[in-house]
């Protein structure tokens, strides 16, 4: 078990966003979290990534309680994440963005006087990730000048450059054209294998992506886990299809 949430509750005043959510992520899994707006997905992400402490229950990553631990500490423990709204460093180049992640991973951020250009390990690792995500040709382009799809890739690539053990992707294909969605996912899954990721969790609305790549799907509804099953089982569950998936899918 890499990541485990037990009976997690999260209240904001009188509003209960998560009401006894339990889930477990195992080695090698690609797990999708789905649910309608207001189901508690964003709150669950924030609890799983240590941004919010649960009001009750616990979240453990590699056996350690990570409730409210904070993003930086969790990143150091080995969890990476990308965001629903693309997050980049507009005035940094693609390579600099990836270098920053590599520097953070190697703990070199407080080297005040060493030359960044002269650090071969940082340069090589950053370039390797750029190649993995098909961004090597744009290594010296400013992030703000990239097309939207490449910005999304860069956001995810920088999280991969941390070489995390587990990664949480918040709508990895949002803002990407329909034609490019599967390209992005293929790159992402290929990169995950290459760097030896132990598990991927994604929050996704696009059911083609959810059913096309997941080993397991967790459906949330009104702050509770409605179903936690394989794509085939989810598909066969009329209640989940009606409440969360929205339409019956043809295999």
């Amino acid at each position: 078990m890499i990541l485990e949430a037990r009976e997690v509750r999260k209240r904001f005043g009188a509003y209960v966003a998560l009401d006894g959510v339990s889930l477990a992520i195992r080695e090698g899994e690609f797990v999708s979290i789905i649910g309608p707006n207001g189901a508690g997905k964003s709150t669950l992400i924030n609890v799983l990534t240590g941004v919010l402490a649960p009001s009750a229950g616990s979240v453990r990553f590699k056996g350690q309680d990570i409730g409210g631990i904070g993003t930086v500490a969790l990143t150091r423990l080995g969890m990476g994440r990308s965001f629903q709204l693309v997050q980049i460093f507009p005035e940094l180049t693609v390579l600099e963005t990836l270098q920053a992640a590599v520097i953070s991973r190697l703990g070199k951020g407080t080297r005040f006087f060493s030359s960044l250009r002269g650090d071969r390990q940082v340069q090589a690792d950053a370039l390797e990730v750029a190649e993995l995500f098909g961004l090597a040709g744009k290594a010296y382009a400013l992030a703000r000048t990239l097309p939207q799809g490449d910005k999304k890739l860069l956001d995810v690539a920088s999280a991969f450059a941390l070489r995390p053990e587990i990664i949480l992707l918040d709508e990895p294909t949002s803002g990407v054209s329909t034609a490019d969605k599967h390209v992005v996912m293929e790159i992402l899954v290929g990169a995950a294998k290459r760097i030896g990721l132990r598990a991927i969790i994604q929050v996704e609305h696009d059911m083609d992506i959810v059913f096309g790549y997941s080993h397991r799907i967790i459906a949330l509804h009104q702050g509770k886990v409605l179903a936690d099953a394989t794509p085939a089982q989810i598909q066969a569950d009329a209640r989940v299809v009606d409440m969360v998936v929205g339409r019956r899918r043809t295999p």
Partner: protein
Amino acid sequence: MRTPIVLALVGIATASAPLVSPAYYVTLMLPFMAYGVVLLGLNLLFGSAGLVSFGHALFISIGAYAGAVLTTHLGVRHMELILPAGALAAAIVAAPVGALCVRYVKIYFGMLTLAFGMVFYTFLLKFYRLTGGDEGMRVLRPYLLGREWSGFSKTDYLIGPYYYFSLAVLVLATLLMWRIVRSPFGLCLRTIRDNPLKAESLGISVPRYRWYAFMISAVYAAVGGALLAPPTGNVDPTLAYWTHSGNIVFMVLLGGFSSFFGPLLGAFAFIFLQDTVMSVFPYWRLIFGAVLAFIVIFAPGGLMGLLARRRPAEVPGA
């Protein structure tokens, strides 16, 4: 013209100024070099970390008063001791002040730094026995390289040994800052400036790195302040006043905060422009206000931005 050639020409001109320029203009170079050191540090905070301080006069005054206390009261006259002592005093003050300020950004950070600057200004003004109040304190002529230079008149001392000492400090400070902004630390600062949320997700602790930048900039300000005091021979509380903080922010904007050498150009232009305008027009602040408005509206890249427009953009990373 490529940057190394321009730098070499500027270096030659600066080094030969005492030999070829009238003494008056050479003495004007002294505050330029002192403010140059201050602005290198301030721009680490402004240009690299994206934080605008309106209270850095606090640290300039700490460096300047350190020189006054050491030379007048403690009998320490060696500039090689005054500079690190000023830097240490600034670091001691900057540690808690910075830890508080870097929790805030934008106008809140600026106002907090301004508030701390004004607290120190009031301390300098009201603790008369300790600081000399509004009259300030004398700064005795410091020894340079272990020598008193007693055979030199004040002007000869300033445009000779003191000039070259200041130049050496400025060059050293520039080289160190050049390394800092191009180090892994410098890159982490730029990630925080661009997108703190994303930086945190990459494991870069935003408050910690901002605090480091604040500390470094405070030390630079104090070293600049210690260089600023001996030419006038006196320090007073106006060094810590908020308008002084405003002036150095103006210098950074004038030169261009997005360029490494912009602030140095800004300091040079400010000092000489101020001297020229003051000599012909009593309401010089009116002119400076108009210049500042022009820069903010029409040339946000400052003088360096205007110069850069005249040549093709450099390939990033080349």
